[in-house]
């Protein structure tokens, strides 16, 4: 298989043979949890003193004690450290509980002859049978496995994928592409009704940067590469993509393309659809790609848009040319405290109107502000804690902010130093008009940290009867306040109606701004003590919340995608004709439903 990094080996084109960072393992489960989020060595737990600690050495929070978490946790959820619900199965997967694989012998034989690595080991299969929806993780913790792939293959390059797809078509085998496994839309779930042999196509070995073109500022990358590796490798040559979805530690380039991902810093770098210059995808009908790399084309509907968001239903994305940028000279976090959420939204709207949004600007509501506050690690010096107290006093007593109403915006500026400082001033000036007070870099940075550790926190909650999840939408500006209020209230109402004994955590943040609207992110979690089927209750509430989102003018999804979780609303979302269009594409590209994950349509 050709490991030649492109034929145009020029001065400005680098290539990276034989890289082997973390996630290049065939068996990711060796360093990652199979029934929870992230690295096996990183997790929250309550120590003997009842203080929360974060293990490992990978994150800024690692090895630190978080003194405020216990109180926040107990008071927010009515939970107690006395009431534990550890995962009912041991950290080691019991492979006898997994259904034996249904193998298509002829397919396996022919595939073996190509030399492409494959496995039908139970651990490998279970690991690739799920994303990170609550019900998926909950089932794993209880040791319950539904339909799992019958086999896993690890293509090493585009040509391997071509061979696999050809064989799958020949032998009528169902293929499910697997990138980072961070899906939260049930996209990776094997359709239980699927009778054919299901093969999980793990793209993790296709992880090379094939070339970098400094003249055009593009890089040609294999689609299996994981976000953090891509960024790190590019950084080594002084570049970055700037694409940083919250899942970037684990999610893959191909996955971003297949779900229309969005990155935290999209204000500077754009979302995936803005970053992609060229895509190669292997489908049952053959390979689809454009003939040139022109920055924009008027050649009928953009075929890239059939690929982006296709969620693995049409083929496997194998290689992507994407824009790169020189690494920013200077980065600065920041934060602003507003007296209330309304003022904060008004400020974000104004920032968007003036088109001066920093690389990232996020507005957390009061509950999320308190959540973030609870995650403050133990301060080492009396001086810092004194300073914190002073800050608090200044904001609540001197400025008269109600601690139960105030909210905070976190900011991230990037660029050359002078411009960043100028930009920073502009944004703070706007914020001041809406009663915003600058609240320091620390608060800002901690806000962003929250997004990386939130998924670990869910695992902690699940040890103590607390389950939860996040979901998102995009909505026009004039609807932002209404949708936040109504969806949060709906969650609380539904929990009550469904018999949840404790008041839930129902919180949101405005997480992206656009010219014509914003992306809103909701967190929802509750204590399920006393419920016989908590996951079902959870799903009913999430369903109701989505209905509420749609009734308030929100979209079905901003970047998580549809998968199987939100399929039922697709028709209303894109109209009957729209569905017909997508279906006819599917029918042409994949008439035998080889890519049979049944997402989207």
């Amino acid at each position, binding site marked *: 298989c050709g490991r030649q990094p492109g034929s145009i080996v020029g001065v400005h084109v680098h290539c990276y043979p034989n890289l082997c960072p973390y996630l290049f393992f065939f068996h990711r489960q060796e360093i990652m949890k199979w029934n929870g989020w992230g690295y096996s060595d990183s997790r929250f737990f309550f120590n003997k003193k009842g203080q929360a600690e974060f293990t490992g050495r990978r994150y800024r929070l690692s090895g630190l004690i978080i003194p405020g978490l216990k109180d926040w946790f107990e008071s927010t959820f009515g939970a107690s450290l006395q009431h534990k619900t550890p995962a009912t199965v041991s950290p080691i997967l019991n492979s006898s509980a997994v259904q034996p694989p249904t193998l298509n012998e002829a397919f396996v034989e022919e595939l073996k002859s190509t030399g492409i690595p494959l496995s039908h080991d139970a651990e490998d299969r279970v690991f690739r049978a799920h994303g990170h929806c609550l019900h998926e993780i909950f089932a794993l913790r209880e040791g319950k496995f539904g339909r799992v792939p019958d086999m896993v293959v690890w293509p090493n390059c585009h040509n391997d994928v071509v061979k696999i797809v050809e064989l799958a078509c020949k032998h009528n085998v169902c293929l499910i592409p697997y990138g980072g496994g961070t899906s939260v839309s049930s996209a990776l779930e094997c359709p239980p009704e699927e009778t054919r042999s299901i093969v999980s196509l793990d793209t993790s070995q296709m992880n090379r940067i094939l070339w970098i073109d400094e003249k055009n500022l593009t890089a040609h990358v294999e689609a299996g590469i994981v976000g953090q590796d891509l960024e790190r490798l590019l950084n080594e040559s002084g570049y970055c993509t700037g694409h940083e979805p919250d899942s970037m530690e684990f999610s893959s380039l191909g996955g971003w393309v297949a779900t229309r991902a969005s990155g935290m810093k999209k204000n500077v770098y754009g979302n995936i659809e803005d970053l992609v210059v060229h895509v190669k995808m292997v489908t049952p009908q053959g390979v689809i790609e454009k003939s040139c790399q022109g920055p924009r084309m008027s050649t009928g509907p953009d075929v890239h848009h059939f690929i982006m968001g296709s969620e693995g239903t049409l083929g496997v994305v194998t290689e992507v040319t994407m824009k790169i940028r020189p690494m920013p000279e200077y980065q600065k976090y920041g934060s602003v405290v507003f007296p209330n959420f309304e003022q904060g939204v008004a400020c974000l709207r104004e920032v968007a109107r003036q088109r001066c949004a920093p690389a990232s600007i996020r507005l957390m509501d009061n509950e999320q502000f308190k959540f973030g506050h609870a995650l403050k690690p133990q301060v080492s010096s009396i001086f810092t804690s004194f300073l914190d107290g002073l800050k608090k006093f200044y904001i609540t007593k001197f400025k008269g902010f109600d601690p139960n109403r105030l909210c905070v915006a976190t900011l991230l500026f990037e660029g050359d130093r002078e411009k960043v400082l100028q930009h920073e001033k502009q944004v703070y000036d706007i914020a001041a008009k809406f009663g915003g007070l600058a609240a320091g870099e620390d608060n800002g940075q901690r806000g962003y940290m929250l997004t990386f550790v939130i998924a670990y926190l869910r695992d902690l909650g699940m040890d103590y009867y607390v389950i939860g999840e996040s979901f998102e939408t995009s909505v026009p500006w*004039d*609807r932002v306040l*209404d949708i936040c*209020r*109504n969806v949060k*209230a709906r969650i609380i109402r539904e929990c009550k109606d469904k018999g949840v004994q404790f008041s839930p955590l129902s919180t949101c943040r405005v997480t992206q701004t656009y010219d014509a609207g914003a992306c809103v992110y909701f967190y929802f979690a509750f204590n399920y003590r006393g419920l016989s089927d908590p996951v079902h209750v959870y799903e009913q509430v999430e369903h109701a919340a989505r209905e509420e989102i749609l009734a*308030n*003018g929100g979209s079905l999804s901003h970047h998580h995608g549809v998968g199987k979780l939100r399929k039922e609303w697709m028709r*209303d979302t894109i109209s009957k004709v729209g569905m017909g269009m997508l279906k006819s594409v599917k029918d042409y590209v994949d008439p035998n439903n080889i890519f049979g994950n049944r997402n989207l349509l």
Partner: protein
Amino acid sequence: SDSKYLDPMLKKRDDFEDILEERRNSSDLRYALRCYIPVLYKELTPCKASELKSMVLQSDQLRYVINQVCKETGMAADEVQAEAAAILEEMAHRLQLSTIRFFAFTLSKVFKTLFRSICVNEEGIQRLQQAIHEHPVVLLPSHRSYMDFLLMSYILYTYDLALPVIAAGMDFMAMKFVGEMLRMSGAFFIRRSFGGDKLYWAVFSEYVKTMLKNGFAPVEFFLEGTRSRTCKSLTPKLGLLNIVMDPFLKGEVFDVSLVPVSISYERILEEALYARELLGVPKPKESTSGLFKARKVLSEDYGSIHVYFGQPVSVRSLAQNRVDRCQFNLIPRHIPRKPGEDIHSFVNDSAYRLVRAQEENMVLKPWVLLASLLLQNHHQMQVAEQKQEMALDELTEQAVWLRDLSRQYGAFLHWPDHVSPSEAVSSSLSLHRGLVRISEGRVQLAFEQGEPCSTVTPEEELLNQAVIILSCASYRNQALHIFLRPALLASAIHTASSSNKQEVYNSFSFLRNMFSNEFILCPGATVQDFEEACYLLVKTGALQINQQEFVVTERGHRTLGFLTRMLDPFLQGYQVVCRFLCEDATEGLTEKQFVPAVRKFIIRHILTGRLRYTEVLSSDLQKNSLAALLRLGAVQKLKGYVGVCHPCTSVCFDWLRQKQAS
């Protein structure tokens, strides 16, 4: 579970507490000046009445309409803006606590003189308090008297609840001083009709929505639109309900609580006034001095008032699975749009449900039953050409029978069970001395005993009698909603060509349709109403259903007789209106001329003995029947003129004629 749903007996209602009791035992002044700290809406951002006005004038909604008006009329923007400000100025309330305190003091004095008690269900108050805290609240009291909204504010003040802002008709404002006083106690004034006036509508609806959305105060208005002169609930008006539901439908608030309030007066202050008005006998112009003809009114006993705060109804739950809120996604929400068909029917259905909820919680006094019996007896004796009176014992016996029947039908009847029935009857009668006379153990309606050959013309005498009869009818009408559905069934059985269930249903459905301007009959609920009526009549042993055939039982005849007689005046009334339109209406009859003309026609018929129900003289009934005939297509309106279609073309028309012939 089916029977549970149908059985009105299973309704649970709260107990009452008399709020005047405390007033009789402690200082009114201290009460008026006491510390008042109401529970407010949890998301309220406090603002003054003046800030409210500028919020309205600066709203996107209003700015859009002002722009539109400018384009259409060519007027300058600031001119239109000024006009909008003037409209708002004319409309807006100036709620202030001091005025409320003034009213708290004076009304305490007045109420104690006029009424024996003002009874309020405290659990309802607690529910309301909770509702006010949670969501914007709309108060929907029934409307039988001018007293209603002062009474409402008085009660809310008494219980430390947020004082409402009240939509009131402009006619109040004409009363200079009273108008301003009411304004300062929370009333805002709206013109009775402003059909095409876009700007007026925009100011008005935005004003109401702003107050509601911000939780400034509970918004109060009368679903029935105006005081019911007949004490029947009026078919609901949808304008304001549309406005208060809009913020929910457009997602501007999470929910809105609608609270139906049933105010029942044992004796209505305006009793005789209403009867005169319905008869077209000139009434004193609404003026400050006329509102209380102080001395006379104050010296009388008006019994007690019962105010029942119903279960708050969530607009969100009403709209669930009914309205697709996504329909507002594609056009900016501040651009006014006519509500679509689905919204209209949703609001209409909700309005009927709410009026039904008002009806269900109306407290009925024994007198209401007595009035029904006395009226029926009056007419029966009239037909038999006997003296129109009744032995007190007999009345008591019948009243006890009717008491039990109405309770089985789920009436919210306050019958004094601690005294003997005869005592209960006579004390009820004594409160209504002006309407009934008792002499030598016999009861009759209190007609003026004119000398046989005095100067009074027969027409004048008829009208004098009619005042008494319509007054009595207004009390009977309070019980109509209890008996309505069974009465429609009884009449249907009476008129249907056979006792086959389907035949009877058809007949029921026709009558129900015919009377849907007259009574509160929820649109589209024919089958449900029919089933409820069947259920009640069968359950009480008046009716049996054997293989799709209705059989009236031995004891059922009394019930069915009573029920048909209850509806008969209305049937006769509709027939006589038909007859008028066929026989007497000249071409080019305008709507304005209709009532005087039909009245004349009816008087002629009564005086010549061709018609026995004096209450048919009620202009309310005449207008309702015209509206029904218009709706059914038997009559057409051409440029303001009322014309009759050819009678033979209309099924309903034929039917009414046949019915009359039989």
